């Protein structure tokens, strides 16, 4: 059979609940999110329009932090080609490619741009 049986895990809903390692409570994550929004607002309002393009490409590179999650998915490994495990690896691989383009492209192009902003000699 081309598609392994465990591909069906895709469609099965709530198999048998297993207790997961401790997660940070939602409220704590929310607090982190809200406080970070304020920090971001305060810091970024001070950036002059002169540097708004590098700000965009630089912050873009920072949003490539999804790379962290992508690596975990890509490194999870598989034993059979037609399996959910392999599907996770493929998604992970693509995510790593996308996020790395974001990170490497973002920081490099920002560096190129910023290198051109010069004072008068």
């Amino acid at each position: 059979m081309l598609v392994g049986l465990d591909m069906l895990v895709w469609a099965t809903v709530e198999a048998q609940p297993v207790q997961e390692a401790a997660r940070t409570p939602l409220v704590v994550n929310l607090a982190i999110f809200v406080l970070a929004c304020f920090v971001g607002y305060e810091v970024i309002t001070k950036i002059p329009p002169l540097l708004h393009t590098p700000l965009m490409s630089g912050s873009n590179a920072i949003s490539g932090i999804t790379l962290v999650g992508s690596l975990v998915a890509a490194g999870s490994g598989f034993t059979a080609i037609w399996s959910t495990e392999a599907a996770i690896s493929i998604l992970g691989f693509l995510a790593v490619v996308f996020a790395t383009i974001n990170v490497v492209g973002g920081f490099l192009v920002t560096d190129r741009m910023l290198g051109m902003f010069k004072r008068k000699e």
Partner: protein
Amino acid sequence: MPNIPWELSYLVYLLAAVLFIFCLKMLCHPRTAVRGNLTGALGMLLAVLATVPLALKEGAEKPISSTLGVLLAGLVVGGIIGAVLAIRVRMTAMPQMVALLNGFGGGASVLVAGAELLQRNLKGLSTPWDVALATVLSGVIGAVTFFGSLVAFAKLEEYRWFRKPIRYPAQQPINALLGLIVLGLGAASFLHPGNGWLYLALVVVCSVLGLTLVNPIGGADMPVVIAMLNSYSGLAAAATGFVINNAVLIISGALVGASGVILSQLMCKAMNRSLVNVIFGVFTAEEDTAKADEIYAGRVKATSAEEIAMLFDSARRVVFVPGYGMAVAQAQHAVSQLAALLESRGVEVEFAIHPVAGRMPGHMNVLLAEAEVPYEKLKEMDEINPTFSQTDVAVVIGANDVVNPLARTDPNSPIAGMPILDVDKARTVVVIKRSLSPGFAGIPNPLFAADNTLMYFADGKKAILDIVQAIKEGA
């Protein structure tokens, strides 16, 4: 691989988040900005290094080619593509580049959330409601960002099919319908968090929505769109942080989200339009030729390079006003050359940069910096406007709507109330333009017919080089 406690990795994540904040703080000044960017890159490198042991621990019993192999392959492929893009891109194409990068960020979020969903199924974990909600949000925001950004990229690159918005009947009802389907699938996906097919369907519909939302938005509104997509890519990363329970994603995502929101607000303010109006209100440019003839008839004075050179001879202060047309004509180096020549002859030269000049926030600044104009000479609107009355010559190159006095005088104009550069207050205004065709707003510009305005009809780059030539010959 040594067995590193996860707490250590999380401490490194915290350090990375702090470095990102420092990175943005140092972007506040051109002197520290280069180091700031490197600080951010260092933070990212640390975060990646801290993640690899965590990633490999998951698949400890699996063949190494399927763990480390996949991981490294992804890093190498992505790294090469990213580096090639960043090194080869022209400065005039920076808006496209940023749009594309936004898209990849959003795409990564969709994929990570999808992988996590499968992972939880495989391990037989129950999904709490907040994780389910965050997964839906990652999928929705990420997919809209990815495909929206691709459309923005195609429009900015001016690919054949995307030069004009693709017209089809009932655009808004179709968007509304897609929105409803997204809501329905999102709710279903939220209630059945283990169902991969529902998530896939949701992502597909959101992809279509991303296409149809950005499709009708025109060129001059691109700064807002890019800023918004930037914000979305951050929010998608934050949502993914909630999915995989990782604070560094939440913090970084929030920082980027805030940045995008601030920039879109600034852009909207600079066009005196609301965000809703930019996204849903298709700018109806009515070609009012009768009115244009009435304004221009017999009043437009054409000029030549020689005449402009003579003007500069007696000028003490000259202000250049660049717009998107300068980028199109690739005239930034010529403009810089002319500015340097005028300065060497004792003329005070400055540049007036409107917030929405160009196709993305700060577009003109990057181009002029590339052409080696010192950044002290690039002045913001509020700073330069009071100085136009003491300016001998204002040279408008490739800008139109941002110098249209109708914004101040005609309350019925589509650009009424938009803050503009007051070039008309200068003693003489030179407008370099190919023809009298209207700008993005599709309205005539009385500036072109004003008593103190001279029109130089030519390609921007050639015009400037001719003026340089004329000045050198006259001297």
